[in-house]
């Protein structure tokens, strides 16, 4: 995987956020913070839960705490997916 998230990946994350928060996907842009999208701490936990399911990854509590914007959610998920794929490649 590349070091920066590609457009389809970004779209998957923003769709998860939009679906979870029940808001139009086009409002979920990389420059938005969770505050701006009226995502509070409990909504945030639900969104991370949905992202974990979408990508079959495990976001630690410490990583979760660093996610407060759409960009941070996309980049956090990207890093974890990359790590998962690297681990799978190393095993095979």
């Amino acid at each position, binding site marked *: 995987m590349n070091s920066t998230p590609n457009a389809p990946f970004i779209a998957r994350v923003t769709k998860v956020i939009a679906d979870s928060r029940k808001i139009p996907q086009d409002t979920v842009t990389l420059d938005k913070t969770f505050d701006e999208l009226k995502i509070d701490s409990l909504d945030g936990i639900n969104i991370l839960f949905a992202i974990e399911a979408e990508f079959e990854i495990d976001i630690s509590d410490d990583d*979760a705490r660093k996610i407060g914007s759409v960009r941070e959610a996309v980049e956090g998920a990207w890093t974890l997916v990359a790590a998962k794929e690297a681990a799978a490649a190393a095993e095979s």
Partner: protein
Amino acid sequence: MDVGGGERGSCGGRIVTRRVAVTGIGAISAFGHTFPDLWNGVSQGRSAIRPMTLVPPGTLRFSSAAEVPDFDPARYFDERDSAFLDRFAQFAAVAAREAVHGSGLEFRQELGERTAIILGTSAGGTTSENEEYRRLYALNQPRLAPLTIPRVMGNAAASRVSLEFGITGPVYTVSTACSSANHAIGQAFWMVRDGHAEAALAGGSEAPFALGFLRAWEALRVVSPDNCRPFSLDRRGLILGEGAGVLVLEPLDRAQARGATVLGEIVGFGMSSDASHITQPSARGAERAMRAALADAHLSHQAIDYINAHGTGTLANDAAETEAIRAVFGAPTGSLPMVSSTKSMHGHALGAAGALEAAVTLGALRHGLVPPTANYTAPDPACDLDVVPNMPRRAAIELALSNSFAFGGLNAVLVFRANSTRSALDKANAG
């Protein structure tokens, strides 16, 4: 200050307001099966948080817990009785026995009818429920144990204690998550103070170590992966604990007349609801509960020497609680009371938390020794209080608050006073 002998209006006319003494304390906790075990531990600043054993942590994000050590039900109950009792109800009975024994009270017919039992629990018999549902859902065994309902019901603990002591007055259970025990003790205090009961057993119990319940806590992302460090800059969450605490309450004059050892007094109780967010605490709600408790006690905030904090060790609670304490007690650090979170040592026992902390607060007042906030590493500007870091502190303290703030935004605060005739009684008892 006058808190005794006055009259208080009520719907049904006028009722006498009495001073309320604590004459018995029972506690089973991660430190052991008795209140002295708990007090010796926290007063030395020791932590009872250890690797979790009751549920193999496996892939759970946390692996530390404050579990009651070496609990063998056969030591306390015959086989037939323990079949009826979930671990949370067993804990309540063990703590109640210690408290009642210490008080010297016997609940013969008349007193039994005029004695209340109010116990808190958050999850009731969740370990029994988890086990039976595992058989049903995972093992496909459609038949559940016939005693599942009486084991799981939230009032199982209060009912057991009622049966065991023949206490036939008002008996019920309060479930307000982490504030359960403080709500229970507060209501019992009011009942004795206002003449609705001649004695009361009050407290709470909890046994949360069931995989389903732990997974639910994990999903909320508030449990620390390593240790509980309340008010510290690097705090990472709470550590779940278990156990039970029970206090025996009775009118002070009656306790003195029968020569009972008065372990302290409850002098105030205040409640509030945040009505703002289901999990995010509000400093305003906590502030209003503390103010209500002080008003109920007819006390100025300046009279308070020590606060046993809710202090869960989560980012949100400790900052909000600090803001609330500073709002009530004023800005200059010099005049703020000492504040410590003993959850850093006995863990967060949820529905039992307020009861264990009431026991600890009474110990602190009685011994003039403030238990510390353990595991403290670095100050957080958002928690700018004297949190008595790591080392217990000798201090002549007379009045203390004990805070409980629950998920759901429900707050309950108790005010305790040291027994003013303590030294005289201690001399009498030494003989």
